């Protein structure tokens, strides 16, 4: 492991890679600050640039954009009560009230320190957990991989919130359906191309990511423009106040930051859970642990209420790299995009990655430390200046983002048909968003579609067409059992809740 760390360190400290960490964090912070544009869009917008870079440099850049975007999202949550991404929604609960009290600087500083704690601690956990899990998963066979992918896709749906499970599953299935368009990799047969040459190579994941996230998010913001204007009026980033944090305040929030980091990392490792759930859970945990007096402060500018989600969402971001780097299975939309980028580089994330591409594997982990340091040392003092970028008129910003999204896809294929397809997917994504369908499962299904089909084919061929491969190996059977539990849990929970409320209603009516 020490050799690996040294390899990663030597790659990560190369001037180009250090520059990319800085650029990634800076650009990510800016894009993440823009309300509506989250880390997925930020990374998607950077992918065309990474194609010209070395794999490790490209991934380091994307990882930098990831933490930067989450940090940027917190900044807009605190300053203008407009979360840049869903994982920083909770930050606004106490961050924005602090800003309203004239403590925006302190709130930003605390958010940065909490993010740093979460990021650093989780990078350490990743350093320990990833190689251990990778060595275990070296014995995995195609049936295990297939089962893992089913688990990943199911978990994404199961964790998507009340009333959203079926919708998330449908979006996953839609993603899998889109992944079948093009020439079948095994038989060479064309599927769903309808005779179009442009569809023979299938639909590029970059196109789908850009259209369903970057384009759709910007267009949705335009669609709800009146709401945006109100937010713009509230923006006042000229006076952030002092960024100093007292010793007492540090003492108060330090245990919160550590607790939330551990919780965030664990939630991040679970496929499908992600930073948003981690932030909500950490906030809830901290509120439950607080004294009655302290509890009343939550929602009005509590320091613990601000630090908990910030530490948790950053820790969860690092945690989500564990299944990606060790099993090749992304746990979130963001890591799904990274998986797509790695595959485009010819690198297959999974247990072999640590052996075949140790430089990429370790440099990503090591660069996380640098990323967190960059965010703390460079981005924090720059926040007053970066937040000025929020003043760029939307009338200029929106066409620019549309241009970068379209050009990013066009410059890879040089085919204008891709732009028409982007518009088509963008319209479909807007419709689905308006009907409250989550988009991340679509991307996850799409990215995993090809791999899942390959592993299913191999497993079926080995078992001579029998589905017994699902329970013959203990690992596969174990993973499938977990999948069933994950699938049944929300239904059972719903059923129990209904029963409880019925009982309460009955006892209430009998009393009256």
């Amino acid at each position: 492991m020490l050799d690996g760390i040294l390899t990663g360190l030597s790659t990560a400290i190369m001037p180009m890679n250090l520059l990319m960490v800085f650029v990634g964090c800076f650009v990510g912070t800016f894009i993440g600050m823009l309300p509506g544009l989250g880390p997925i869009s930020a990374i998607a917008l950077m992918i065309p640039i990474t194609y010209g870079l070395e794999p490790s440099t490209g991934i380091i850049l994307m990882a930098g954009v990831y933490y930067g975007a989450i940090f940027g999202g917190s900044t807009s949550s605190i300053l203008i009560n407009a979360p840049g991404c869903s994982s920083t929604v909770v930050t606004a609960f106490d961050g924005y009230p602090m800003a309203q009290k004239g403590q925006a600087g302190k709130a930003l500083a605390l958010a940065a320190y909490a993010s740093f704690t979460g990021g650093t601690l989780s990078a350490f956990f990743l350093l320990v957990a990833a190689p251990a899990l990778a060595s275990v998963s070296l014995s995995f066979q195609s049936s295990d991989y297939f089962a893992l992918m089913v688990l990943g896709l199911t978990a994404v749906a199961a964790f998507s919130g009340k009333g959203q499970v079926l919708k998330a599953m449908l979006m996953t299935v839609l993603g899998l359906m889109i992944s079948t368009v093009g020439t079948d990799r095994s038989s060479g047969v064309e599927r769903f191309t309808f005779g179009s040459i442009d569809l023979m190579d299938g639909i590029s994941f970059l196109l789908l990511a850009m259209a369903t996230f970057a384009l759709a998010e910007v267009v949705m913001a335009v669609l709800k423009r009146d709401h945006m204007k109100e937010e713009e009026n509230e923006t006042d980033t000229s006076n952030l106040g002092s960024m100093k944090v007292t010793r007492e305040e540090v003492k108060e929030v330090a245990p919160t930051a550590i607790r939330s980091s551990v919780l965030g990392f664990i939630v991040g490792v679970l496929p499908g859970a992600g930073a948003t759930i981690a932030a909500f859970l950490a906030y809830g945990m901290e509120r439950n642990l607080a004294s009655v007096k302290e509890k009343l402060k939550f929602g009005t500018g509590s320091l613990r209420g601000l630090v908990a989600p910030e530490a948790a969402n950053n820790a969860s971001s690092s945690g989500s790299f564990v299944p990606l780097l060790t099993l090749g299975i992304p746990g979130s939309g963001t890591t799904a995009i990274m998986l797509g980028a790695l595959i485009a580089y010819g690198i297959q994330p999974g247990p072999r990655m640590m052996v075949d591409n140790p430089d990429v594997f370790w440099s990503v982990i090591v660069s996380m430390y640098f990323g967190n340091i960059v965010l703390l040392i460079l981005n924090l003092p720059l926040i007053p200046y970066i937040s000025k970028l929020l003043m760029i008129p939307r009338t200029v910003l929106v066409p620019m983002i549309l241009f970068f999204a379209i050009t990013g896809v066009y410059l890879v294929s040089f085919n204008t048909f891709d732009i028409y397809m982007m518009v088509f997917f963008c319209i479909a994504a807007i419709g689905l968003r308006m009907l409250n369908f989550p988009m991340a499962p679509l991307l996850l299904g799409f990215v995993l579609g090809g791999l899942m089909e390959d592993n299913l084919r191999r497993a079926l061929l080995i078992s001579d067409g029998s589905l017994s491969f699902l329970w013959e190996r203990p690992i596969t059977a174990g993973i499938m059992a977990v999948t069933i539990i994950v699938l049944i849990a929300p239904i059972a929970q719903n059923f129990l809740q209904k029963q409880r409320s019925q009982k309460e209603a009955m006892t209430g009516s009998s009393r009256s």
Partner: protein
Amino acid sequence: MSSKPVNKDLIGSLIFLALSIAYGASAQLIPFYPGDEYEPFTARTLPFALSVLGAGLSFSLLISSLKKSREVSLDQPVLKSALGYDWSTVIKLLALMMFYALALKWLGFIIATTVFLLGGYWVLGERRKKVLFGASLPFVVAFWFMLTQLLDIYLAPGQLFSAFGG
């Protein structure tokens, strides 16, 4: 008795049901080679499985949305909530993107992108000439220079110019 508004889940489930059926029907068009019937896995296997899964899930969503709408009055009528949005700007932007694709092919990168950005600023309500022209042509030329001269990326001139230039 007033009729209940059509809820979002119901519309969504019907769309997905139709999509799954259409997808399954199109899967029939995937070529089937002689001997494929003895193979445990063919190019049609996953599409058929997905079609069945998609139809089953959409049907479940349909049932649950019908059940819910009977129990409680659900969210706002879809049409009513959608009417409050700025559709005209969005339609113009989408049309502009389509035009951009067409113009890129015929007019080339510089003209197409300049027109796209100018059009985008205009559609979103920007009327200041300084911004309109300052953030379009100079930016596009700088970007074109970076792509072609610094990154050595070949950008084909528009087909219209190629045709005239022979």
